[in-house]
């Protein structure tokens, strides 16, 4: 393969593949990537194997783009391997950036996960007691499975990350902008964004791009879940008492959810400079509760159960309460 081409790897950890699809969704742009780069690993689309990556010299890859969170030892091993082999390591998508929806598992007692999956499941083989084990010896063959970690980690809790591309998945147009920026930086056509930058997104919260009208008065006596009412498609969802994460979420997705009658759930992560998206959403929601009496406030809050999975829908692993020392 020609030396002047960038060497890149695209990989997924604990992921759904949506990030890979978002790259495919850049359509013709893929052909440009192909012109500019050799894709040395991309399990969903190419035949590169782990051993091919292991064989590379350190830093031989110009860019490694990893989507997905770290759930098991294989995810972690690959994260370290790709970090070691690459000059620039990109955490791509909400899972890599903040833990994503898989990190909702961190809110669940681990024992219950086991019971649920193997001992209390409507379609299990009657009387089943078998559970997968890290090591199984079967008629003389030793079979190994990766070890599953106590919780889900975002990538930078495990390896050093240079850039983040937010989104679940990143909106293809934004992915294209982000990848182009990286390619230009790596080929010296443009200055590289500062390490740790969030690329492929804007510098303001979603409301900036949301077409819904916003009034001064935002006070609600009760909240409504999306199924409970027919909403007014022209008016700010929060003003209608429907929880929307837009005000605390970085813009860049194209406001596709609120534009289609579905409240934002925050997949693009916190606004620039914000430590925890959940904490900010907490303040925002509290700000519109129309009561000064503790009891009434509790009453009103009954109409928004399970606040946590709203506040940190994509960012449980990124919560300050999820401190990690894996690195």
């Amino acid at each position: 393969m020609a030396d002047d081409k960038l060497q890149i790897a695209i990989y997924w950890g604990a992921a759904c593949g949506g990030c890979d699809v978002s790259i495919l969704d850049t359509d013709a742009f893929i052909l440009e990537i192909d012109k500019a780069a050799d894709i040395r690993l991309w399990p969903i689309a190419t035949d590169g194997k782990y051993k091919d990556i292991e064989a590379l010299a350190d830093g031989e890859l110009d860019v490694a783009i990893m989507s997905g969170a770290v759930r098991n030892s294989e995810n972690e091993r690959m994260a370290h391997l790709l970090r070691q082999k690459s000059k620039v390591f990109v955490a791509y998508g909400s899972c890599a950036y903040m833990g994503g929806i898989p990190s909702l598992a961190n809110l669940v007692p681990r024992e219950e996960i086991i019971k649920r999956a193997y001992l209390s499941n409507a379609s299990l083989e009657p009387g089943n007691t078998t559970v997968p084990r890290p090591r199984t010896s079967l008629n003389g063959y030793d079979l190994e499975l990766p070890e599953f970690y106590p919780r889900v980690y975002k990538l930078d809790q495990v390896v050093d990350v240079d850039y983040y591309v937010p989104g679940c998945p990143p909106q293809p147009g934004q992915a294209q902008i982000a990848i182009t920026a990286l390619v230009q930086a790596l080929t010296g056509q443009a200055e590289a964004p500062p390490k740790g930058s969030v690329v492929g997104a804007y510098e303001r919260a979603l409301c900036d791009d949301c077409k819904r009208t916003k009034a001064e008065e935002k006070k609600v006596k009760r909240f409504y879940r999306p199924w409970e009412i027919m909403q007014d498609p022209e008016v700010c969802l929060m003003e209608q008492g429907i929880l929307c994460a837009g005000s605390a979420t970085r813009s860049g997705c194209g406001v596709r959810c609120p534009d289609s009658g579905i409240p934002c759930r925050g997949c693009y992560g916190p606004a620039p400079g914000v430590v925890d998206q959940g904490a900010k959403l907490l303040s925002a929601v509290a700000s519109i509760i129309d009561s000064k009496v503790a009891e009434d406030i509790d009453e009103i809050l009954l109409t928004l159960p399970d606040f946590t999975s709203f506040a940190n829908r994509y960012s449980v692993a990124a919560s300050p309460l999820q401190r990690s020392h894996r690195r």
Partner: protein
Amino acid sequence: MTFEPKIVGFLCNWCSYTGADLAGTSRIHYAPNVRIIRVMCSARIDPTFVLKALHDGADGVLICGCHPGDCHYSEGNYKMMRRYPLLKSLLADYGIEDERVRLEWVSASEGQRFADIVNDMTERVRALGPSPVKAALEADLAER
């Protein structure tokens, strides 16, 4: 040796911080476990402060503001009052025990009350042991 909890206290300047000062001028002794951070109003207390404190190793967080109706900024403490139950539900989902984070109204004249709260909370948090945030950290270290 017994576990000595570290508790971070966020106090509003006008009532609670003054109340804590009054405990001092009245020489009312209490447990040394609370480290006080002054804010102008309990409404300034971004829930991020509480999460950050727990992240940085606090075993408990005490939030104090003026009594409802007595806020120097007339309504600031109501803003905190509205955040609090949401904050508690968030913390509970992350496994932070109820007694680790506490909101109390302390007026400028309630030095004794402030001291009593600090003593009571220190006891309860001591009984709970180190914060789960630290424990999860230990687990990670053990995994390495």
